[in-house]
């Protein structure tokens, strides 16, 4: 009996020790995020003004990339309207259309544009198309571990690393770091690939723009979330992976990317995204179900207005993504008024 309790105690101790280890790691991660880059929200975006009579439930199902973003928006929104409840679930962008169609969610965040096939299914049910709101900018980043000495990659190189079809036109498949010009003990090391699962919009976007619509290699380790991609690359010195810029930590480097061999390398920052030089920039979208010619549901409209306010865009910056410009905000506001 005594021995039994001792053994149980040991196991508990072991767990405690391990969880301590993890806790430390995750704290250090979140600290770094805030110090990454300084981006200012456009002063021309108006501030949010609260209205009366807003309450009820909202639920959001979709992109994992935008999971934290929605949670932060929800927190900010709740400061104005404490009676509002919002649930956020992020398993991947492909889950958003299904949820919008079945009506289980009013907000469908997606990190890629909706496919025509998905729009068809929505339209078949409701008779009109879903409304697309572009809510933030993202620079889809290619991450390597912080020890990696590589300077940058061209898109055809990225394609040759991740894709077996090599539609980017790079002559040879790239499997070792040496083939990218790294010297020393890096030269012979195989490149370890991390990616997202196929439900992810990031998976789809990367496939379309970095792989030129080619197929992923079978050896890409499909992670269930953006955080695990970054975690994987942090732990794996010879790893490479992709995720939204909001998931950047100090354990990884977001590589500068060039369009082709002739182009210069561009950092995945706000300036390069706005100028259009960074080739993997994208909009993050939220799809909503809005009946044409009818007023939008009050709660939904106020939430959208909050997103397109100075405060809402400040949240985007806080989460590590890039805010919209005043011009885009103006276009998007028209869709909800």
């Amino acid at each position, binding site marked *: 009996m005594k021995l039994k309790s001792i053994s149980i105690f040991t196991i508990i101790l072991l767990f405690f020790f391990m969880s301590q280890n993890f806790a430390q790691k995750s704290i250090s991660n979140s600290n770094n995020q805030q110090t990454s880059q300084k981006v200012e929200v456009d002063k021309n975006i108006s501030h949010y003004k609260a209205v009366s009579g807003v309450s009820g439930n909202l639920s959001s199902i979709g992109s994992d990339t935008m999971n934290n973003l929605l949670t932060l928006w929800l927190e900010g929104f709740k400061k104005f309207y404490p009676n509002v409840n919002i649930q956020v679930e992020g398993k991947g962008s492909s889950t958003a259309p299904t949820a919008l169609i079945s009506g289980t969610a009013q907000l469908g965040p997606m990190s*890629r544009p909706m496919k025509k096939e998905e729009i068809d*299914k929505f339209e078949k049910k409701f008779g009109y198309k879903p409304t697309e709101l572009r809510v933030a900018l993202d620079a889809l980043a290619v991450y390597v571990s912080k020890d990696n000495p590589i300077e940058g990659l061209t898109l055809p190189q990225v394609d040759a690393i991740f894709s077996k079809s090599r539609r980017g036109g790079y002559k040879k498949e790239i499997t070792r770091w040496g083939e990218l010009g790294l010297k020393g*003990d890096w030269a012979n090391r195989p490149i370890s690939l991390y990616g997202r699962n196929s439900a992810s919009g990031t998976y789809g976007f990367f496939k*379309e723009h970095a792989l030129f619509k080619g197929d992923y290699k079978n*050896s*890409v380790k*499909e992670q269930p979330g953006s955080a695990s991609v970054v975690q994987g690359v942090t732990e794996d010195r010879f790893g490479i992976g992709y995720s939204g810029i909001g998931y950047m930590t100090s354990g990884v480097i977001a590589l500068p990317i060039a369009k082709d061999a002739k182009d210069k390398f561009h950092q995945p920052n706000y300036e390069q995204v706005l100028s259009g030089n960074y080739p993997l920039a994208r909009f993050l979208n939220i799809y909503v179900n809005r009946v*044409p010619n009818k007023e939008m549901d009050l709660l939904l409209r106020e939430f959208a207005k909050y997103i397109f306010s100075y405060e809402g865009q400040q949240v985007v910056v806080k989460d590590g993504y890039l805010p919209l410009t005043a011009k885009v905000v103006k276009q998007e506001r028209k869709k909800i008024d």
Partner: protein
Amino acid sequence: MLKDKKHKRASFYNDAARIIIYAGGIFTIVVVLAILVFVFNESLPLFGDADASKTKEFQLQNKHEGKSPLLIGVDEYEKVAYTVTDSATLEFIDLDKKEIISETKIAGFENQAFISSSKTLNNNYVALGSNQGKAILLKVNYSVTFSDETERIIEPSFDIIKTLKIDSTNQPIRKISTSVISDDEWTIVSLVGANEIILRSLLITHSIMGDEQEDSSYSKFYADTDSVTAMAIDNTSEKLIIGSRSGSILYYSLKDKTSPELIQKVVASPDKKPITSLQFLIGDQSVIVGDAKGNISSWMRVLDDESDYGWKLVQPHIFNSLFSSIEVIVGSQRDKSFIIADTEGNIQVKHLTSSRTLVELNGIHLPIRDIVYSPKSNGTLVLYKNGTLEHFSIEPAHPEITLQTIFGKVWYEGYKKPEYVWQSTGGTDDFESKYSLIPLIIGTFKGTFYALIFAIPIALFGALYTSVFAHPKIKSIVKPVVEIMAALPSVVIGFLAGLWLAPLLERILPGVFLMFFFAPIMMMLGIYIWNQIPKVTGKKLKNGYEVLMIIPLLILGGQLALWLGPSFESIALGGDYRAWLLKNFNQSYDQRNAIVVGFAMGFAVIPIIFTICEDALSSVPQHLTSGSLALGATKWQTAAHVILPTASPGIFSAIMIGFGRAIGETMIVLMATGNTPILDFSPFNGFRTLSANTAVEIPEAPYQGTLYRVLFLSAAVLFIMTFIVNTAAEIVRQRLRKKYMDI
């Protein structure tokens, strides 16, 4: 009296218990069967046929006015169609009212007739060529508004993007093909004469300051064949395919629009008959080729290291032929299916990936002018040369699925050879879904295999030791501890394996391999010391406590192995075991690999196998063991020849239950492997199992869509697999039981 009451009560409880147990058992069987029926029911429609039915047929009035329509297009709701006639008019047709609602003369083509036409895949852009060398690019718009009752109102209109003289010679444009990326970026290819090709393209770029820069190009070349019979340009303006009278196709690269480059010329018609029709499918990878005899095949380019250009054409699919010369091919905007028709008016819907004929459209069997596949791929309009218009609605069901695409090798777009691939979703419509279950089935067995080769020896010998050799006191500690292992949720094990064990193992792998040599040595050493102690001290040690001596030594040995690992790596493995593996075995080491899962899943399986084995071994009748020992057999002889065989049915079912647990395990595999659907048995890379795959992909699968049904099919496959294994195991167990019952 009292006794009788007691008896009654007892028999009541007895009956009640029996009924409950019976009911429970039957209920369980019914539920399992119901789940089974549901799973099969959800997956069976995959193999159903497509459906098509004729909904409308009417005569276009313009035919009576001497005008002949050249081509047809339609909006996405299949309400408003348009035709362009040879006498340069564009008409919009209301398909519900079956009449022409507007007719516009296209300016600039007075006294000319259109003799060639083509439309883009999305059927919004139309290029037309006249008999006097003039071409026009039109854009058809449908603006959709909603009335107050949310009724859809479609307003059709068209814009002229560009009217141009193709060159100065005014020769008639015999064939025309166009690719439009936007209003500001397009290419028109025209055929004049027998083999004279003229390429016109335009690119307008807008700078941030609002300046427009126009970049137009003109080039003319002679195709490398006597007579051009068909041509098609892809939607990205990069590839031009030309078909010749002698049955060959010529692949030109248009990367440099000013000087098209011939990449390859191959014979595409098996009988060297003229190529009559060419069409790129969505995604611009595959081109469908039809010849004058009705043969249909698809061609695509694949990477080729030998040629200078780096690409070559291959023929991945051959389709069932039609009956006469192929007249029209149109592709879907949603998937890889296409509609193909011959001159006799036979119309079929086929699918690229599955090479299947989905459905045959039963039209009026007259010569066909043009066909349009509706943008949502749920219908088609067929325009006959006599001016009849027919509408069919099409329900494509699951066109990409056949037994061959699920269990066989398929030659996918851009692949060098047919392969087994699982890659179910892409972010775009032009993605070719790949639904081979073979990598997942192999992955399932791979995971189970590595888990069991780790778990069986440990659990089995552990159970043998604790039940036969160890002191009962040790047994009373070991057994509950092992059973606690089973209480760990698999998601915790998976989490630890993925985030803690995998990186750790990568660092210390050579040391871990050394452990396999150190462990037996240390064990021998431990036993030797144990036997020597009484000789030195003169005191007899209690039997069954050997393990107390061995465990510290094993830990020491493990530490020693880890300590020696790096030096072993640098001396024997050239400093880096990953590079060594890659060089000598062509195996790349992946951090999330089968060894990690083997350990983690083994950890989950060990308690199950251990407990059941231990119970089986302990329940061997005491008189057998005592008898054996009394007859002078040693403990080991008794264990190996009496206890093990007698307990073998129990041990066997322990292993089978462990197997069942491992094969269906989801969370550990999901979290500890990279879920890479690869096809090999190497321990140094990952895999994807059927169960993990279902867990990963079901949230994204639209209800009753193809992926949804394929996932249900994979569940059915998993069920059949476990069913076969369990049945076989049960038969073996029964046999063993019979054999050892007499002892």
